[in-house]
């Protein structure tokens, strides 16, 4: 029998619903805040169990609070996402802008979808059909790319050839801005990538839709869009850039974990691993902010 939720749990959940995704530090602070507000027992290392209690209650609603790693900064985040079992149950959990999820399944999914069941979910006024199609095309570009990004130029070209209805340049920019605001996409220097929230929410759908086309990280086994690749043509494994930083940290002679060929790419500095994200107050010896990665993956002398 699932344990009933205290007010502290409900407050945590409400905050998750409002924000969609929060980083590990905020999650810990929120945990403490919620427990203290309602006089609940608080132990700083019990966040996972705290969340599991909530998740047990969320499961019948096809929702879960999950942990995931950002491809950008390697940090751990908590997000409120739809349950893995959703797709099996044919009930498509929907809140906020999940019509995006629906769209994939309606447009090209091999899974048979009962159209009547999806009526209930197509209710948001936020994104029109062609805007959803644009998002889908953007996602196609991103998954297909080497570096997990799609340029605004390429997206604009897609906008011009939508099946539903074309989007003009200004309209396209407007949609992209909203997608960024709604935390589905990240934008940097005119290039768009999938946000951490988007990947966490849609991982299973992405795998299903793109199947072999989608890259998977050899280290953590999650979908890998911003990643490095082994140059050995018979190997070609992919590793998330933050996973590269962690795996090869301190190694003077980095070797591919699969084929042992020399790993030729720049090893980024100091991505904090989720487990070392400071729960204690002791300061990290080195600056733990990740250094900006160059998008071009060139050989460089590495710090030893």
């Amino acid at each position: 029998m699932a344990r009933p939720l205290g007010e502290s749990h409900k407050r945590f959940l409400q905050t998750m619903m409002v924000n969609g995704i929060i980083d590990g530090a905020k999650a810990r602070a929120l945990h403490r805040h919620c427990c203290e507000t309602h006089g609940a027992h608080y132990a700083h290392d019990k966040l996972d169990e705290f969340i599991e209690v909530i998740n047990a209650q969320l499961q019948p609603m096809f929702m879960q609070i999950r942990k995931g790693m950002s491809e950008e900064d390697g940090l751990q985040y908590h997000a409120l996402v739809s349950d893995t079992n959703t797709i099996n149950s044919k009930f498509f959990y929907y809140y906020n802008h999940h019509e995006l999820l629906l769209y994939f399944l309606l447009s090209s999914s091999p899974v048979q979808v009962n159209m009547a069941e999806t009526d209930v979910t197509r209710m948001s006024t936020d994104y029109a059909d062609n805007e959803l199609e644009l998002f889908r095309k953007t996602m196609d570009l991103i998954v297909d790319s080497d570096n997990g990004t799609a340029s605004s130029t390429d997206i604009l070209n897609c906008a011009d050839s939508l099946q539903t209805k074309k989007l003009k340049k200004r309209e396209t920019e407007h949609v992209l801005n909203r997608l960024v605001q709604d935390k589905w996409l990240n934008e940097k220097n005119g290039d768009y990538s999938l946000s951490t929230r988007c990947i966490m929410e849609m991982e299973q759908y992405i795998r299903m839709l793109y199947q072999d086309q989608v890259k998977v990280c050899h280290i953590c086994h999650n979908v890998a869009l911003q990643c490095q690749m082994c140059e050995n043509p018979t190997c070609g494994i992919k590793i998330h850039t933050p996973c590269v930083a962690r795996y090869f940290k301190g190694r003077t002679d980095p070797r591919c974990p699969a084929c042992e060929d020399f790993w030729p790419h720049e090893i980024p500095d100091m991505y904090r691993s989720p487990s070392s994200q400071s729960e204690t107050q002791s300061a990290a010896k080195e600056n733990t902010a990740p250094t900006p990665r160059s998008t071009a993956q060139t050989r460089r002398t590495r710090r030893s």
Partner: protein
Amino acid sequence: MSQRKRASNTQSSQNKGVRSQRWEAVLGDDEDDPSFTQPSTSQVQKGLDRLTPAQVDLKTAEVVQFIFVKDQKKFPIRRADIVKHVVKEYRNIYPEIIKRVGCVFETVFGLKLVEIDSKNHVYILINKLEQLEGESLNMSPSNPKTGLLFVILSIVFMKGGVVKESMVWNTLKKLRVDQGERHEIFGDVKKVVTDEFVRQRYLEYVRIPHTEPLEFEFRWGQRADMEVSKVKLLEFIGQLHEQDPQSWTQQYREATAPPAAPAVVTSANTSASVSQR
């Protein structure tokens, strides 16, 4: 009020034509479904006997999701819409489903599903958890409309619960919010106050009878009654005027009076929901 800030939703008029017919039909106000009459207890039991627990659970989850989506704009949710779009062929066990839905909202999310109109069967979702002052950990971008709303609620409250609209506009004008001009943040102020806030049930905008020309007055709406703490409001006003909240004896008495019980959807009262106001 936990409205999420959104980028302006202006979609070009051409885009609107893209939406599917079905989509348009699901949005907005449908006519009340005349064919839905509340099933009797025995009918509900018979209906339940024919379904598996999993089926009922699934339908409950769907209604919860539906209400969350509809609640985003804070407009009340019609029973007719719930039945027509989600419950559908399970309508014969509707009381059981809505009872479970109410239970889920309370026990999982700390929210209350309240039927605010027992004639037209309309619900709102309110927050049972106390909204804390300066809850920066909440991390949601604070909605500027909340500030505007609170100013108006304060005016109405301090004036004993009802206030002529002219007084509200005059006060707002002193705060550089002019209903006659387009406001930088709020846009059409009059529309936000007399339409949006009213539809969301934060305010009531009522015609004063026998007035020529037509005059209106503002009162607190049902959602404000349930969600807004009068005590906290008074404390805030006290801080503003650097006075003890208790110095406004009338208002203080009203703020600390026990609240009238709203018609909460619980296991105790599934079929008859009488709004006690």
